């Protein structure tokens, strides 16, 4: 979903920058609060970030000035909350632009908005909703991560369609969206399944830290941290 450097024309990249900046600044505030309270969460944060980097480097090209790949930011949102996930995605997207020339500096704002803001917030909302509805944890994780991934791509299609409307916004949106859908729907399902395994591992191994960070419900957390001990 990384929109390539220079692909977005003049008013659009600034607009996405401005929108993203507000939320990322809020995320930085949350992040500094979290690391003050739980310094031991720092390696988890860094590993999450590097993990997003590696996952979204496994890319398939897509002929929309962009590409398809797993995003990884859905899991980060479930574990760390959407605001912090957006900060991690910002750092990762900057590194991808600078270390891989994947995505770009001017398109950073648009990419942050789709992968770092819409994806995590959709994922987190679904995660909370499925916890409230008492859906099994693994199903909740799957839904959250798979739909976070898909919503990221829907957002990218909207951004591309707004920048290149052609005859009408709707036509252009359908063109971009259907090109993405071919590669992205299987990838989103794959990422969701992978996230179930990863989350299970995290709950077993880091249950105590996660439940003290109020990520997983006490029921899951206390039971699994006993397992780990």
């Amino acid at each position: 979903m990384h929109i390539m450097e220079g692909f977005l024309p003049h008013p659009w990249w600034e607009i996405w920058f401005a929108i993203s900046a507000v939320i990322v600044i809020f995320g930085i505030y949350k992040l500094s609060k979290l690391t003050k309270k739980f310094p031991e969460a720092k390696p988890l944060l860094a590993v999450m970030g590097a993990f997003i980097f590696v996952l979204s480097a496994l890319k398939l090209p897509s002929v929309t000035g962009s590409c398809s790949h797993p995003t990884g930011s859905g899991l980060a949102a479930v574990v760390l909350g959407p605001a912090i996930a957006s900060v991690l995605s910002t750092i990762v997207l900057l590194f991808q632009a600078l270390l891989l020339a994947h995505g770009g500096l001017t398109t950073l704002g648009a990419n942050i908005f789709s992968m770092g803001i819409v994806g995590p917030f959709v994922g987190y909302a679904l995660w909370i909703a499925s916890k409230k509805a008492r859906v099994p944890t693994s199903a909740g994780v799957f839904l959250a991560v798979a739909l976070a991934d898909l919503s990221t791509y829907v957002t990218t299609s909207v951004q591309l369609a707004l920048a290149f409307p052609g005859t009408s916004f709707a036509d252009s949106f359908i063109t971009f969206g259907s090109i993405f859908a071919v590669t992205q729907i299987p990838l989103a399902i794959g990422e969701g399944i992978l996230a179930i395994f990863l989350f299970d591992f995290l709950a077993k191994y880091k249950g105590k830290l996660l439940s003290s960070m109020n990520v997983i419900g006490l029921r899951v957390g206390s039971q699994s941290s006993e397992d780990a001990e």
Partner: protein
Amino acid sequence: MSHVKLSAEIDRYAYTNALSKSSPTTKLFLALSLLLLSVMSPSPIVPISIFLTSTVLLLSFAKIPCRFYLRLLWYPIIIVAVTCVIIAFFFGYQEPFTEVNLLGLKWTVFKDGITLGFTTFFRVLGALSSQFFLVLTTPMTSIILILRKARVPKVLIETSLLIYRYIFVFSEVMETMHIAQDLRLGYSGWLKKLRSMSMLIGNLFIRTLEQGERTFTAMNARGYDGNIRVLEDQPKPSKTALAAITLFTVALAIAAYLTMNIRIV
């Protein structure tokens, strides 16, 4: 897989290129002004000259091997070219330019579609090459140090430095595990490939998290207080270089203004 390896290669060039000793502030200033110019420019003329400028700077001043530069460029260029052909064909609607026969279907191509396709292609080319200039001549740590001087919040800098480190830890572990799986024929079929891939990603996460915790313990044992201190002995930017870049930028901006109304067809 290869993409993660590519980042290690780009990182190496950033430290070893012939311009690595010159001031990172100057390089960042030049790259960002070229980037902004090519993105803001309404006609393809200025992006083309920016592409030529940064290519010359990279190949003959920074001494980046031509083959490596081409390897970086060809992949995005092909994707953007295909995309721009699509834009040229499907996104025009004003004056018709020509009609083509697409599998028995008559398809009208419009003039503004072609102009949009061309402009987008060269805008991406100019922007990409100035991004490559920054990436291949300036090490990540220098960029992070500039960000630190620009008063970016401490927690952000620290997390960035840790993530930067873990990217390479990840890619080393990933490489080792990938070779081990490959030797045991883990990638010999489509289904096996999928299974091996998910095993790899899952284990990668576990291994690096453990390693991350050990690093954190080691850092704490050495008196880590939330600040990662890096030796800051970066060369100072020369005033003449900055002035020259400003002049060049202004000249290009004027050129962009003058060529504003050029149309391809």
